[in-house]
């Protein structure tokens, strides 16, 4: 009795299905790569598939966290990929112009400039959405298209290569034997969780997302909250851009962060945040981003033929989203769901997830 109720409690938890999907994906790798879970120490840092997933997945986690808050306000930010490209391009340009590329001061200056521009990009989106009342999907589409052009302008269409150990730390380096990007992600996660769950800010964000007009009438500065969400999203994308360019020590205006907005939205949705706004789950988003990165790594390690990559990805994503939909589960495992009764039915977000998939997969 206690076991079944424990099981029921676990399956009822909103993170159950995302975590189950992540674990299943990781386990699938084992028959193909027997040492998949092994972690070794190589050249003074940890090395293994799990480390790679965290290292290559960090930028997506960051972008998805920013995206979560924007989506929670009932918006969406399509421009994150372009902001990634702009931030990486600008930082690499600044570093490459310096006489001593290894100088920490120079690299910090590059970071500061890139992040400042990322914040401006976010503020631009926020002002278009909150002040001018443009539909978020249209407002951010402007920067999605134009931003990539700006990034190409910064790099003059070339790939800017930097040779700076200081610069390569944030996205490709190691600290205390762990990928440095892990610490950056942890810092952003802890800060955003503390700000949204330990203060009233998270509640305000959800209130604005639930009904912007009503929240304004009860005295919440809903426009300001929205602008802040977009700026935070821009900042996260900016940090992700630094990581991506730092990871390969090069800025590629055309390809850096290409389609990352779709992966980020997908991560947010898999994590149980409703695209209609009004509620968000940062923890779920992180799991969602890890699922997507694990999926990518899995495709490479199990040797899925190149032509079937996208089909494989689509099938997995569809299955994950369907499993999260309580409506779908009720239809397929009908008997069990009936016994549980209607009380447990449809916690909005999960039910929404399945149809919304069509957009992002």
């Amino acid at each position, binding site marked *: 009795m206690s076991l079944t109720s424990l099981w029921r409690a676990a399956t009822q938890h909103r993170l159950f299905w995302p975590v189950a999907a992540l674990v299943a994906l990781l386990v699938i790798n084992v028959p*193909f*790569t027997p*040492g*998949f879970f092994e972690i070794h120490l*190589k*050249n003074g*840092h940890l*090395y*293994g*598939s799990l480390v*790679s997933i965290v290292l*290559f997945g960090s930028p997506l986690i960051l972008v998805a966290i920013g995206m979560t808050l924007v989506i929670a306000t009932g918006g969406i930010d399509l421009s994150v990929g372009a902001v990634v490209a702009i931030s990486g391009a600008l930082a690499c340009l600044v570093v490459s112009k310096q006489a001593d590329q290894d100088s920490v001061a120079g690299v910090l200056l590059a970071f500061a400039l890139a992040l400042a521009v990322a914040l401006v990009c976010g503020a631009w989106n926020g*002002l278009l959405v909150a*002040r*001018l009342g443009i539909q978020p999907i249209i407002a951010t589409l402007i920067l999605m298209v134009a931003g*990539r052009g700006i990034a*190409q302008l910064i790099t*003059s*269409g*070339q*790939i800017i*290569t930097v040779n700076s150990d200081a610069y390569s730390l944030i996205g*490709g380096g190691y600290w205390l034997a762990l990928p440095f990007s892990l610490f950056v992600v942890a810092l952003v996660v802890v800060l955003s969780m503390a700000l949204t769950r330990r203060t009233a800010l998270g509640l305000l964000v959800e209130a604005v997302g639930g009904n912007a007009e009503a929240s304004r009438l009860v005295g919440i500065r809903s426009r300001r909250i929205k602008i802040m969400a977009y700026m935070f999203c821009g900042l996260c994308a900016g940090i992700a851009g630094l990581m*991506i360019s730092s*990871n*390969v*020590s*090069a800025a*590629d*205006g*055309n*390809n*850096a962060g290409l389609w990352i907005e779709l992966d980020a939205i997908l991560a947010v949705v898999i994590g149980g945040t409703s695209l209609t706004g009004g509620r968000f789950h940062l923890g779920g988003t992180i799991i969602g981003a890890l699922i997507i990165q694990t999926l*990518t*790594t899995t*495709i*490479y*390690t*199990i*040797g899925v033929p*190149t*032509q079937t*990559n996208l089909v494989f990805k689509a099938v997995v994503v569809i299955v994950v989203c369907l499993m999260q939909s309580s409506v779908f589960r009720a239809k397929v495992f009908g008997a069990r769901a009936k016994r549980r009764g209607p009380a447990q039915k449809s916690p909005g977000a999960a039910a929404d997830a399945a149809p919304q998939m069509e957009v992002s997969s």
Partner: protein
Amino acid sequence: MIDRRSFLTAGAAVSAAGILAACAKKNPAKSTGPDSSGSKQITLGFSQVGSESGWRAANTQSVKEAAKAAGINLKFSDAQQKQENQISAIRSYIAQKVDVISFSPVVVTGWDTVLKEAKAAGIPVILTDRSVETSDPSLYVTLVGSDFEIEGERAAHMLEKVLAGHKGPVKIAQLEGTTGAAPAIERAKGFGKIMHASHPEWTIIASQTGDFTRAGGKQVMAAFLQAHSDIDVLFSHNDDMAIGAIQSIQAAGKTPGTDIKIVSVDGVHDGFVAMSKGQINAIVECNPLLGPQLMDAVKTVHAGKGSTLPRWIKTKEGDYTADQAAAALPSRKY
């Protein structure tokens, strides 16, 4: 309140300025159109794939410079790796009645409709860099570009040189280009041809697309190294993916160029830098500087002598090994 208002005004001013600038840019472009055709200047509409790599940037620059030098009015557009962008660019060139259309196809198939439209409008088409599959060979005049299959064969021959003296089986990992792109398909084909014909000891144990980018090459190679501890050779379809892969090989505690031999295609500047450090063992050049050859072809076609051109004008290319890298590095233009 003042802040909000002044911001709105500023925003409006900025966007108005943007629109004005856009108009100002467009107007002269439109007016030069009829002028130039009147003064017999050839107008060439060129649709580039994108700017996905240093190679492509050099290719773009070569086309632009050669057009200027040849006195050809160039209308240039960047398709950002999307076929639909390229098709709409070609349609707009047809609508603008340019004299010759040239483009580097993003993918191999799906061009028949738009090429028929160009033919119906009487505008000759010259392909550059990459070929297309079409049911009607009269849809384009000629292709100026590299023979990717031969490049794959040359890469296999370079690998023979790199492996000279090596006995026993050779396990190869392959980083493919963008799925469906001609260079990816043909380079794999050419390499496989030589491998199957004369090297039964070679096996490709892993092959995956890295989308011709550094980040792609790095991520795919990291996964390859996890799944296969015994990779002897990396064959990369371009230098950028090889450069990304080198970083993953180093992270895995192996020495690129020694523990894992690397053969790559392209010959971009950064590729030569890596080769001069011994990280890449051999590079098969794929020359992007085909602008002058393209402009010659455009002039010939415009003069109505298109039938005298060969179906395929091949670019001039060389092969390089690590010991030649340092000497060749200063003269690399791309």
